[in-house]
């Protein structure tokens, strides 16, 4: 009985793998924001003896993430163990949004002359890297899916989002709002557009073999 189940599961996986292999289907489109999000400024530093010595980076908060709400089974069995960098420069996290898969390690580099203290209290990943100076990097392995909100304990205006996906069917928008999710297996999906902490819109779509689907979003 057990052997039969294992054999059936293996066969199902193989069929899914073969069916998905070689698929060049793609979902692409544009995410349009209804007005640019205003830049974020540091809270008033009334106790300071002057302006910050150096410039503060104006973070581009227009970037959105588009992802499949559901994904093929095999997508959850793929694992990437790469490294990506989240820089701390001019009292900002750069980039402001990271989208990664489970198993990815993020290297938090401090490029400022100031100390920074990266931390997160998010359920998906709680960590506190302590204070460290320019040139040093500290790494965190993201081993659970979810949204991780990242802050600096010293500079309260610094924040970033790390979206950790259990599959690889997601894409960040480019500066013109365009996105592209490649190698999507044929099927019916719900596609979600996320921006600044909220899933703002979702649409259903059918993807056919070797076809591209154009899907645009307008976010309020």
């Amino acid at each position, binding site marked *: 009985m057990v052997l039969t189940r294992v054999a059936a599961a293996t066969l199902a996986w193989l069929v*899914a793998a073969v*069916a*998905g292999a070689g698929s060049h289907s793609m979902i692409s489109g544009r995410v349009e924001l209804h007005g640019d*999000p*205003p830049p*974020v*400024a*540091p*809270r*008033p*530093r*009334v*106790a300071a*003896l*002057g*302006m910050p*010595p150096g410039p503060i980076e104006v973070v581009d*908060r227009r970037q959105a993430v588009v992802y*499949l*709400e*559901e*994904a*093929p*089974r095999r997508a959850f069995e793929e694992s990437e163990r790469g490294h990506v960098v989240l820089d701390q420069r001019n009292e900002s996290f750069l980039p402001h949004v990271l989208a990664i898969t489970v198993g990815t390690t993020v290297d938090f580099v401090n490029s400022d*002359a100031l*100390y920074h203290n990266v*931390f*997160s*209290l*998010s*359920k998906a990943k*709680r960590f*506190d890297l*302590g*204070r*460290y*100076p*320019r040139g040093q990097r500290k790494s965190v392995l993201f081993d659970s*899916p*979810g*949204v991780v*909100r990242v*802050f600096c*304990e010293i500079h*309260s*205006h610094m*924040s970033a*989002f790390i*979206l950790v*996906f*259990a*599959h690889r069917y997601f894409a960040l928008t480019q500066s013109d709002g365009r996105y592209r999710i490649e190698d999507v297996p*044929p*099927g019916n999906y719900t596609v*979600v557009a*996320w921006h*600044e*902490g*909220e*899933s703002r819109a979702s649409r259903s779509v059918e993807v056919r073999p070797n076809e591209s689907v154009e899907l645009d979003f307008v976010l309020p």
Partner: protein
Amino acid sequence: MRGRLVAILSVLPLAEALPAPADAAEPIRIGFFQLTLGGDVSGSLAGKDSVRFNETEYGRSLLRVLRLGLCGELKMGAHLAVLAETRSENLEAPRLYALYLRARPWQNHAFDVQAGMVPPVFGAFVRRYGTDSALIGYPLAYHYPTLLRPDSFPRDVPNLLRWRGSGWRVRYPVGSHEYDHGLPLITALRWDTGIQARLVAGSWQLSGAVTQGTLSNPLVRDDNGSKQLSSRIAWRSSRGLEAGVSFARGGYVSQEIVDRLPAARGRDFRQQAVGLDFEQDWGHWILRGEGMWSGWDAVAATPPLLGTRLSAGAVTLEARFRPWPGVTLAARYDQLAFGDVLGPDGPASWDAPVSRLEVGAGYALRHNLTLKVSYQRNRRDGGSFQRGDFVAVQGSAWF
């Protein structure tokens, strides 16, 4: 393909990730102007402090206060800004804490000038770690009322020593006859009015100020014609050490009061202070320390107390540790000591020495919402009440 897993977005428990406006200031732009607002609220609760170890000049305990603060910055281009902060305690009418103009004449040089009700350049507590401490109390030097008042003076040494250890409620026969608190070494609760400048050059930071009052007694309007000069020079290493030396000197007594004392006319009554401070950041640890000495030229009806320099010294050592995300542990030791005067029974310190040990823990529910609990052990070598041990809790949030 039917073998699809619902990815619950196996992926996105989005509820906890609120949009950016919840935790970052989004400025309001009106043409040339940009207005940024922020605020904080904190509520502290402890047993009744009848022994007044945490007394402030507003007559309430730092461990039993609800505080609301609202601050704003109006930027006018790249070179000018107006900053202000108001605070209300226990829902009383808000009072102005800061209001000044900030100017950076040259965009490429970290040289700033601030004029108005400005933060102190002396010491470190108010600017560096007044807000990120895991403890609820303040260092003694920044709030504890000594026997000195700017508007009421003892007749002689025995009259001064009679009040030893009771700076939270004192009155003398010369000047005001009302009971009131004495002056701390430096107050963290009011800011002085004047003009200050700061220059940052590499690892060095030099700041100086000319203000109406003194560290002990900040003023909006000068009442004695003697401006306070204060300065601080600090050095920051690339390895997390910052060390500073501060100096301040200014008249602290109202001229009107001095003029009433024939023996005091024509004399200067100044507060002078010197301070050392350091902070070392090291991973999840922060070690901080401050030491300061202050001397006041005493006002009294007659010599020998008249003109005698009454001195006080304070030492603060604080360690902070973050063992887990959102959890902060901290401990601070404070010692406040006073110089001797010659009393009827021989030399005696002119006020009662005080020591304090405070240990506490904080837990961040969100990055801008923290709960704290602390235990404070106070000892005073004199006065009617010599011991005070408190457990306090505090909730605080900023936006």
